[in-house]
């Protein structure tokens, strides 16, 4: 049939309608498109937080002096710690094993005298190394708290404190240091990746598994038109879901939105093109719903979560894995998405990323078309 076939649009529209019906009649689609984004936005907005506070920390005071009491009082006032005093490390050790305590601070005997004689005695900290992140933060926060306390104390004890060099940090785009500002835009990316790869991974595989693919192929419509008709409903769903997320992010979590809706629309469309293509390719390639979802999880959802630079810095990963991130579409989405919220329209950043995502999309689209054509031959 030629591209000028007057009925082509009619047929494509019919397949689109069929796809829509399939989507709307299935409550699981609603779950994925409406419920899942809301759950994810809630979890990343309210539950996942990298700003830790209230870390349960044991304290053993072996000094029993004014200085040690004051230091403990200072630590208790610091919202980062939840202090629990104990008579000895041996007593608190059980808490460390069970995970009720994440660290033990020991103020050794002679702490105050050492301070006065300018022969300081160091504070000891034991952390639960199995919780690496908490242990790192605990060490850092205790160092900071001790330094501040010593500086305040130094005035009374006549110890000169003037640092030679000092850094004055200023956080652009996020002056309140809210990790939510980083996590919520990332979560939107995850939602799109999920709808894109997971939902579409099922659609072709289902046709093959149920044996309805032959019927679909017998429809007088070209393969690219068939693929497009299958994709369009999911593209619209993806966009709708993104819009829902943005509304929750801005009105529910108070994120700023400095960019333009047009920029967001272009970024989201480019990314959806890539992930929808990826999902469909998986689906057409595996022809089995189970294998297809596993593949979509492994190559779509998990890399978007773990290898996109959303939670974990790409530059800190081993070199081989850094290379691998170049083929993860979400890598090209997350920076633009974070920028459109927090910075504004940074087209110098958006355009290259959009171009790469469209290339991904085009590549997957061609492969899907070929994968289906080969099957007929």
């Amino acid at each position: 049939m030629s591209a000028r076939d007057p009925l082509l649009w009619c047929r494509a529209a019919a397949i689109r309608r069929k796809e829509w019906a399939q989507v709307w009649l299935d409550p699981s689609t609603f779950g994925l498109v409406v419920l899942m984004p809301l759950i994810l936005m809630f979890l990343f907005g309210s539950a996942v937080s990298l700003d830790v506070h209230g870390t349960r920390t044991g304290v053993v005071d072996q000094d029993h002096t004014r200085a040690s009491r004051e230091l403990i009082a200072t630590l208790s006032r610091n919202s980062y710690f939840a202090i629990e005093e104990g008579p000895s490390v041996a007593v608190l050790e059980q808490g460390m094993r069970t995970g009720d305590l994440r660290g033990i601070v020991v103020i050794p005997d002679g702490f105050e005298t050492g301070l006065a004689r300018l022969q300081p005695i160091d504070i000891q900290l034991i952390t639960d190394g199995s919780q690496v992140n908490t242990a790192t933060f605990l060490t850092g926060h205790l160092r900071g708290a001790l330094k501040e306390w010593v500086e305040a104390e130094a005035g009374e004890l006549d110890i000169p404190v003037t640092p030679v060099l000092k850094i004055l940090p200023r956080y652009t785009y996020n002056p309140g240091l809210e990790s939510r500002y980083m996590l919520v835009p990332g979560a939107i990316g995850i939602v799109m990746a999920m709808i894109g790869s997971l939902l579409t991974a099922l659609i072709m595989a289902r046709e093959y598994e149920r044996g309805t693919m032959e019927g679909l192929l017998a429809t007088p419509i070209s393969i690219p038109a068939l693929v497009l008709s299958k994709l369009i409903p999911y593209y619209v769903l993806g966009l709708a879901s993104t819009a829902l997320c943005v509304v929750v992010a801005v009105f529910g979590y108070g994120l700023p939105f400095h960019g333009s809706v047009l920029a967001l629309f272009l970024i989201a469309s480019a990314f959806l093109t890539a992930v929808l293509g990826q999902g469909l390719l998986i689906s057409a390639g595996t022809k089995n719903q189970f294998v297809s979802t596993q593949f979509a999880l492994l190559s779509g959802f998990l890399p978007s979560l773990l290898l996109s630079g959303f939670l974990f810095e790409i530059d800190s990963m081993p070199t081989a894995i850094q290379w691998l991130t170049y083929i993860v579409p979400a890598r090209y989405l997350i920076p633009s998405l974070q920028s459109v919220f927090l910075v504004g329209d940074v087209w110098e950043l958006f355009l290259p990323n959009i171009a790469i995502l469209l290339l991904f999309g085009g590549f997957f689209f061609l492969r899907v078309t070929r994968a289906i054509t080969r099957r007929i031959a």
Partner: protein
Amino acid sequence: MSWWTRVKAMALKELKVVLLDRRVLTTLVISPIVQLILFGFATTLEVRNIDIGVVNRDNGVASEQFLAALGGSRNIRAIAFYPSEAALREGIEQREVLAGLVIPPNLSAQYARRETAEMGLLLDGRRINAAQIVAGYLADIANDTGTMLRPESAHPEPEVVARHWWNPNLEYRWFTLPGMITLITTVIVLSVSVQAIAREREFGTYDELMALPMRHWEILLGKCVPAFCVGLFNGGLYVLVIPLVSDVPFNGSLVLMLAAIASFSLAITGIGLAISTVSQNQQQAFLGGFLVIVPMMLLSGYASPVDGMPQWLQLVSRIDPLSHMLTICHGLFLKGLPPALIWPHVWPMLAVAAGALVAGLGLLRLRAE
């Protein structure tokens, strides 16, 4: 025919369905190993290989010394010089650098006058976690350079001497690799178990299943077997593989670990089956399973510590089997905990398993009527 014979026959048939499809089998073995290696090594909250931008308007000894120290830091990959603050801002905006240091023209003069010499540091708030860590690194470098420039300024001050139990060098891998057991087993077990009944519905064999001379609980028990076995096999495999591919020690009891994996697999299988009984087809089952996996993962304490969550979510995390399994994995791999301290985390998983299976049975009965 006793119930045992019937359940055994059912279980064998179910195992065959899963194991005889070569693609399915490959997926079940290959995908978890790939995930373990890939994600176990990739997920680190450490910050390394940082690119920093610098606008230097000072050409005295203070900035020279500080930049030399900055260049020597092992966490910093490259220093890029920018002609102006505006150019530096643009560099940050376009993500060329994570942080930008602005050295004022009077830095060395301030230093010579024995005042505190101050430098501005502009950080990319989009990556707030990494930015805060970088600010910490730079403050340390400034401190060290200050002491080097004027040794007499270093007044004796008490420090914090930290010792890290169970992971002396604070290797991030020691946290992620044992933790991955929990995540990967969940994904694989839930994927297998959610299809158990939904698949029969989709292929129209559900009525036959119900017509079998078997009680509902016997059917459900038989349906448990493949997912449970897959979980036990995969979990056990990782316990063997992790010490082989990495330096993570295994300090606990292997028997205890396997018992914990079995309880965990049973809990996840139960959840999967409960979802499966209410699903009309495989798509619903997969998506339903997914709807459950993601919150369970994010509340488990793997991505961010449970201590940092709101109080009521901490309570929710107590009924999350993933959170208990995560504690057990770290407890047995690193801490070498005794059975008495593992049990408090095993029984909640068994309780979840029992609750989910009873719910699944109830739903199965309800639909049959």
